[in-house]
């Protein structure tokens, strides 16, 4: 009987050692490396989204707010436009595209399938599949009308920060585009 007990104890010890081994190994590695763990999908090349706003003016809302909640703005605008005919430009998807469109080496606007497309840069990384561009245009088609914010013609949401404030260089750019067309 004692032999059996001994064998059982040995077996338990071995199991225990096996279970603890990986923990010990990882602990060793952590001590050895003081670099941070790489991000998931770190082999993916992420291009920097093109910006057409300067740091102080930002987007139609602060950058952190837009990164987290841009879909809420677009959704809100979408229903108002569709059902009530409210056509303010500030949060319209078309103006998002007009401002954030990225051009390739040939000077052509990249499509949403291209990972350099502003929307695709983040959504490819985050594996978020968006349906917007099955119906909506993913490249600018007509000149921006956001300039109207300057003269107060679109007072919708004007109480929010950054509303109606576009960098003078942006306005200049948009005006030039208008004249070019």
């Amino acid at each position, binding site marked *: 009987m004692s032999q059996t007990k001994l064998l059982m104890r040995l077996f338990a010890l071995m199991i225990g050692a096996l279970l603890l081994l990986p923990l010990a190994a990882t602990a060793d590695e952590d001590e050895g490396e003081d670099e941070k763990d790489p991000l998931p999908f770190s082999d993916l090349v992420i291009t920097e989204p093109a910006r057409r706003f300067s740091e102080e003016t930002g987007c139609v809302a602060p950058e952190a707010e837009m990164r987290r909640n841009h879909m809420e703005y677009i959704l809100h605008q979408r229903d108002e436009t569709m059902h*009530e005919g*409210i*056509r303010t430009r500030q949060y319209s998807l*078309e103006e998002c595209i007009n401002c954030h469109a990225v051009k390739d080496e040939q000077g052509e606007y990249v499509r949403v399938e291209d990972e350099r497309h502003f929307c695709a840069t983040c959504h490819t990384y985050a594996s978020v599949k968006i*349906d917007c561009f099955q*119906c*909506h245009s993913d490249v600018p088609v007509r000149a921006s009308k956001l300039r109207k914010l300057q003269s107060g013609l679109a007072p919708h949401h004007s109480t929010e920060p950054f509303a109606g404030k576009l960098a003078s260089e942006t306005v200049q750019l948009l005006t030039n585009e208008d004249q070019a067309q």
Partner: protein
Amino acid sequence: MSDTSKPMDPTRRQFITKAGGAAGAAAIAPGVFLTTPAQAKPADQPVSNDKRWGILVDANKCGNGCNACVTACEEENGWGSANPSEDHSSPEQKAHWIRKVTIKDKATQHVTTLPMMCQHCENPPCVDVCPTGASFKREDGIVLVDKHICIGCRYCMMACPYKARSFIHEDLKDQKPWAPRGKGTVESCTMCVHRVDEDGTPACVEACNAETHKAMVFGDLYDENSEISRELKQYGGKEIRADLNLNTGVRYRGI
């Protein structure tokens, strides 16, 4: 702060006068609306049922063989020949927001042509049958499909007596930003809602006038002084399938 030290205005009349003055000043203060035409809707205001948009078509003036309204609609909204993405669909499947219909009276051999599109009914059957609420009528009488909600069941296509709606069978590219269209949804004439909201005229009406046929008139049916109301009052206009009591926004003459 000095205001609070003053004695309160004793008379109600004076108070009302002052309040009235303040309200008047506030209305003038934006200044924007003074420069815009009276009928233009500010971009941030929702549409209201003070207006009902309609189109009057004079079939006698409509040119036999003229396709200007259809072409203009294609160009404006990016369908048909203006968007080559739908090249695999059969002719029966292809989009038809507006189409020319030719009618021949067998007794007299008289041939009439007219444009046929969504009639923007007051009581639209497509809205009645839609299971998701995607098919809807705006306050100003324009019947639309909210493609964000449309599941592509095509009940509305069955319900429409005018065969005005079509279904998109293929993946599309290069849609117009003002007329989004996508596979798996139903679509139809929007009465160029993006133009109307900015005080414009539908592309088909504009093209017809440019062709000097002047067979189409667009306007507010509720406004007695609008051209369409005056024309309808003086010469009348028919609904197609008036027996269905749909009270269409598109009326015809000479049929």
